[in-house]
């Protein structure tokens, strides 16, 4: 796995830095954001999107950080992080002609295991860090934060990331160059999100889950969807594994 982590180092560092920057241009600026929005109050255009009650709620730290971090900035990035962590895992080796180098040294099961686990561990570490940022920040800066809510968002983040990691990992096994799994992953994300607008297909919109809609509405984890995501992810991993065992290099 040493090699795999070495190969992933740029992506891990890049994504982590992006998330940290994103968080620190958001968390310390609650007062600034609210006062800026208040400056626009009375503007009928803004009232449509941000009613006064919402503006008042943003003054409360829990709502501000949860809605702006989990429900917006970080939340929107979760599927993309899953895609970024998975897309080159196998396809880059095939595209660069180095897969044979690996497969004559280690058996396919080990190669799959190492790649799969390295991507997964990196993804989990990044998502846990990003999900814990509000908790850590609140602790350091004496903000009153309901930690349990942060943990609920963490669960949604982890499994939404896992789903998109599994989907893109399958594409990475199937395709022989790096661009196709990336485009296929992003394309699937776009299609499922758009299809989710149609009511009977709303289950396809994984953003509702990733952004933690049920946590905002009912203060609870969407258990059914979480179990569904786990089952679908495991099935996709099994399919990807079986394809990789038979794939011609």
């Amino acid at each position: 796995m040493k090699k795999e982590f070495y190969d992933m180092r740029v992506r891990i560092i890049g994504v982590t830095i992006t998330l940290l920057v994103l968080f620190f241009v958001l968390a310390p600026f609650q007062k600034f954001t609210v006062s800026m929005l208040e400056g626009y109050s009375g503007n009928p255009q803004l009232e449509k999107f941000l009613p006064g009650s919402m503006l008042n709620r943003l003054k409360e730290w829990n709502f501000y950080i949860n809605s702006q971090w989990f429900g917006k900035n970080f939340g929107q990035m979760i599927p993309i992080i899953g895609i970024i962590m998975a897309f080159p895992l196998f396809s880059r080796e095939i595209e660069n002609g180095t897969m044979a180098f690996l497969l004559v040294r280690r058996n396919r099961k080990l190669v799959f295991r190492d790649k799969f686990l390295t991507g997964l561990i990196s993804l989990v570490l990044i998502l846990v860090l990003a999900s814990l940022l509000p908790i850590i920040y609140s602790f350091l800066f004496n903000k009153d934060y309901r930690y349990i809510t942060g943990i609920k968002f963490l669960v949604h983040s982890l499994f939404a990331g896992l789903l998109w990691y599994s989907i893109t990992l399958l594409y990475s096994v199937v395709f022989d160059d790096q661009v196709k799994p990336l485009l296929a992953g992003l394309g699937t994300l776009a299609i499922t999100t758009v299809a989710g607008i149609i009511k009977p297909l709303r289950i396809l919109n994984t953003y509702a889950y990733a952004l933690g809609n049920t946590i905002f509405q009912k203060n609870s984890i969407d258990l059914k969807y979480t179990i569904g995501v786990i089952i679908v992810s495991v099935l996709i991993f099994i399919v990807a594994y079986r394809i990789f065992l038979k794939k011609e290099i």
Partner: protein
Amino acid sequence: MILEVKQLKKYYKNIKAVDGISFFVDKNEIFALLGPNGAGKTTTIKCILGLRNKDDGEIKLNGSVAYLPEGKELYQSYTVKKMIEITASITKDFDKDKCFRFVEQFDIPLSEKVSELSNGQTTQLYISLVLSQKAELYILDEPTWGLDPIVRNQILEMIRNIPFDGSSVLYTSHILSEVEKVADKVAIMNKGKIIEIGYLDDIKEKYCAIRVDKSRNLDGYKYKSTETENVFVVKKEWAQEHDFECEPITFDVLFEAIVLGNNSSSNIRGEEQ
């Protein structure tokens, strides 16, 4: 026996890349698979290594394998040193010190990125990585591709020494002079089939060239035509039986005749049509 291949078949839709070939590699032997581009050599090797799925046949591999592929692709973003270290971390029985010695011998800078190496240096690095691995069978696919004559001879010398350490070599090339220098046994492949197999000297001894009038045609390997006659490569035994004057041939001529000559399925017999 370190490797046995029986009736191996690999088809890509209608293309018979490998069409029922059989051969074996003994211990301490250098076995060369010889053939033109597209003969099926690399596909055969990939089937042996499990990189391609065979359609039929049997492959028995009795030991560990080290492999040098035809495309000498390594990790472009690594430095030479990192490449050696990473290889050591994923390869069983890898002698890192030996590899550093090879790299030093080839004068490849350790801090250089793989992407900055020339084709020849990349091949040298890859060969260093492969030969630093202790294996019972070394499969080397076009090992001297892109190398200058001096380095090529160095590499050939290294390959020749492999059997002295108790290992065997399965080697592919289309450079005949190289094969003559290193191989004990040879299989000549063309269009997915093995056309001739055996010890190099025996094969050379088995064939000769005969000249026949242009009006006569033989079902043999037509090597060339002149204004008045055709030159065929046929089995010496057959030529003598039919009172042809036999001219000795080099391995190059035999190879060229077999590969470029007529494509009849019975062409080894040298029968008169």
